[in-house]
């Protein structure tokens, strides 16, 4: 039987049934056995109940997106079968809870390999622990698709070891019961067998939200304040455990306004500081983002976007805060917006966000999103000793002669050295009022013009300072495709699919999205007759910004149903546009 290089398993069931934890375990086990892993979850906004889905993609090589569809569907209940039945394709395998669950009759779908496994019944009657249903299912799945049972058991020990041997034994028994059931009752007909990986020591598996927290630690963040909001809360959860270890402080503020206020105060005090939120919180922060622009206080704001407006789709995926991030403030406010593509970017671009904030003394917004925040994926272990961090230009009184300190001194770069409270001879008022070089209020026409120019022009060399905008050029291509944020990974795979079909197509992946890297974008535009922008929002927000800021007049492919693109969707669109 052929070995699969790439396998996608989707597990569906009711929220609270252990879907998420079983998905996590199988992902952990696969990563432990040396496979690349990327997961994708959707769940309801309710605490319990409702349809939950966990999808795991395994591969021997680098995974860039959730993939297109799935190979194996695993249904814990009738609802999950009803929801996913239409996505089943010829050759797929289906495992479902039967008999004994709420699926009332045997399932026969032409071309689909259907394996009934009475997971509820085994858990309830054979094991006497209904909660172990998910582990019975995992045992069955592992056996059917050659996922290392040994790794799965190690993961169980790691997860439940602290709770005592009894708990570990119950889980082992459930795994074995699932395995035994398959061996004694099921004849495998599908062709999915995961090719084993080679265990590596330098790999971690981490969620997008945790990765942002890790990036903050690597950047030297010492202060974090936030207010709980889905899907961003895990950034705070990670840092609440780890920030105090590095002598940092984290507080949960009374609201998002206070969070950013705390962060601005701490940054004025000299500490690298950050907050994390989602769209509604970012709306509340807009006034103080303007204030940090005016004060020239470095702050980092991670926005894990969700479906909006208002409470919208709190647990679903959308890339619809780009306008808010770039243009949400009052007045003429300079700010920087970054868009990470995947888990590694969540780590390293958080470091970039701090470096840019510190170097340019601006607010930097990092636009993650729901699917990226909740996703877990394997990545090469970061090496803290290799991280380059930048600190703000601090005021040196000895360089100033007899002149008194000018906090907002007009320099060639537009960046003025910043003193730290406690520093002798460095006192000034950090202010939201328009001010002269000394920080005293000043409202003259000349001054406002000069100071606005200063606050914008200091970002002029940002495109060169930041990592070059990556392009993937086919010299013969007439079509160039643009994506931002987590859609970049999907576009990379779409491009590979399109090229496999012989299509000539290029792509550009802007990760600095505001201010726009105009040189790279215009250069790309000049090389292509047609530009296609793929993004997940109704207003085609990136396309609109590209139209106003660059030479591009793109065609848009935008979806807005609360789910990410699949590579196949974009590849099909490329074909259509060409």
């Amino acid at each position, binding site marked *: 039987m052929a070995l699969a290089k790439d396998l996608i398993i989707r597990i569906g069931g009711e929220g609270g049934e252990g879907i998420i934890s079983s998905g996590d375990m199988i992902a*952990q*086990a*696969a*990563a*432990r056995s040396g496979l690349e892993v990327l997961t994708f979850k959707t769940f309801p906004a309710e605490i319990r109940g409702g349809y939950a889905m966990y999808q795991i993609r395994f591969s021997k090589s680098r995974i860039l997106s959730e993939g297109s569809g799935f190979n194996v569907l695993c249904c814990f209940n009738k609802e999950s079968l009803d929801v996913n039945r239409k996505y089943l394709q010829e050759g797929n395998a289906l495992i479902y809870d039967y008999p004994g669950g709420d699926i009332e009759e045997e399932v026969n779908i032409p071309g689909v390999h259907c394996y009934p496994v009475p997971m509820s019944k085994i858990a309830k009657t054979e094991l006497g622990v209904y909660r172990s249903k998910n582990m019975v299912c995992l045992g069955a799945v592992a056996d059917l698709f050659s996922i290392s049972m040994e790794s799965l058991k190690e*993961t169980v020990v790691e997860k439940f070891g602290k709770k005592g041997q009894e708990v570990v034994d119950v889980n082992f028994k459930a795994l074995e019961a699932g395995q035994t059931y398959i061996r004694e009752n099921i004849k495998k007909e599908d062709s999915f067998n995961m090719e084993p990986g080679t265990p590596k*020591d330098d*790999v*971690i*598996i*981490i969620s997008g939200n*945790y990765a942002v927290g*890790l990036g903050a*630690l690597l950047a030297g963040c*010492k*202060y974090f*304040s936030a207010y709980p909001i889905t899907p961003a809360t895990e950034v705070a959860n990670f840092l609440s455990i*780890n920030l*105090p*270890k*590095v*002598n940092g*402080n984290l*507080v949960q*503020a*009374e*609201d998002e*306004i*206070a969070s950013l*206020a*705390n*962060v*601005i*105060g*701490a*940054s*004025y*005090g000299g*500490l690298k*500081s950050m907050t994390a939120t989602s769209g509604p919180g970012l709306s509340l922060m807009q*006034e*103080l983002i303007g*204030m940090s622009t005016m004060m020239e206080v470095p702050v980092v704001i991670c926005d894990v976007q969700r479906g909006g407006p208002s409470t919208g789709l709190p647990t679903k995926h959308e890339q619809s805060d780009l306008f808010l991030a770039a243009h949400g403030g009052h007045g003429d406010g300079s700010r920087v917006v970054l868009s990470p593509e995947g888990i590694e970017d969540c780590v390293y671009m958080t470091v970039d966000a701090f470096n840019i904030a510190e170097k340019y003394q601006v607010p930097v917004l990092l636009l993650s999103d729901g699917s990226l925040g909740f996703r877990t994926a*394997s990545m090469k*272990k*970061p090496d*803290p000793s290799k991280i380059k961090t930048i600190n703000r230009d601090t005021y040196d009184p000895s360089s100033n002669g007899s002149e008194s300190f000018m906090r907002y001194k007009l320099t060639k770069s537009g960046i003025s050295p910043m003193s730290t*409270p*406690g520093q*002798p*001879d*460095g*006192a*000034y*008022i*950090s*202010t*939201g*009022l328009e001010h002269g070089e000394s920080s*005293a209020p000043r409202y003259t026409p000349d001054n406002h013009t000069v100071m606005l120019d200063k606050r914008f022009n200091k970002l002029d060399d940002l495109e060169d300072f930041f990592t070059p905008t990556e392009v993937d050029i086919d010299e013969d291509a007439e079509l160039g495709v643009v994506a931002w944020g987590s859609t970049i990974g999907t576009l990379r795979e779409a491009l590979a699919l399109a090229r496999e079909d012989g299509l000539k197509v290029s792509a550009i992946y802007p990760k600095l999205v505001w201010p726009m890297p105009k040189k790279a974008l215009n250069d790309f535009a000049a090389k292509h007759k047609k530009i296609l922008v793929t993004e997940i929002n109704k207003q085609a927000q990136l396309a609109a910004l590209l139209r106003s800021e660059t030479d591009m007049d793109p065609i848009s492919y935008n979806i807005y149903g609360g789910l990410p693109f699949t590579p196949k969707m974009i590849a099909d669109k490329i074909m259509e546009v060409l």
Partner: protein
Amino acid sequence: MDIKEAPMKAKDYKSVVPPTWCPGCGDYGVLNAVLKSFAELELDIFETALVSGIGCSSRFPYFVKTYGMHTAHGRALPVAAGLKMARPELEVICLGGDGDGFSIGGGHVAHVVRKNTDITYVIMDNAIYGLTKGQVSPTSVQGMVTTTTPYGVPDNPVNPLAFVLTYGATFVAQAYSSKPKLVQELVTKAIQHKGFSFVNIISPCPTFNKFNTFDYYKENIEEIPEGHNTKDLNSALEIALRSKQGKTPVGLLYQIQSPTLTERLADIREKAEASDNYDLNKIIDAYKP
């Protein structure tokens, strides 16, 4: 021979920026008394930060030589709290008006108070919006005519003293701008206090508030009786509620000692075995599969 610097006098704390307040404004008296208190405490201008929001009184930091922040309307307290958490060794003093503190910023007060954030919060309470020329404020009395309440204020006023007392403020006092010695004495004690200290200073606005005038306060100010037990929350609340009888009590209402936010954060770092040289590999390795 040691050359000792002469101690700073109140005027030495003044910056080159002249106050922008109207003639007769109570805030002049507050500024002078507060700077006397700085001199009395020998505060280091580089180890002190004044944080304000928006309003007439929120211009205060510009007139002083220390570090300072002039923030957004209503946000001075959480900004000051962030600064204090980042730099606990600094003397952080937050100043502003009644509208800044108890209307637009009112949502923050409870939380900064209950955390016992060790900052001093000085309110200059004129019961009116001055900077926008005379609108009703959260401490304006019911019935008062202002530019947005030509038929009289329909609402009950906030009681700032009772408000912070019930959220667990550990130092609560009220003063009057025309009693500069009392202002100085209470601000000094407030700065010395470990934990959240609150001084509400009645500071009349002769330009826009025609009700709470200096003459009005001549009648209604009453000193807190000497025998008052400042550790007793119930008696402090009783004094705070004297405003219901139209009285304005001045003096120290309440002072107790309780762990501060700075101390509680230090406890958390100790539990986490904090170190400046913590090996991040230890954190990263927890995410090995």
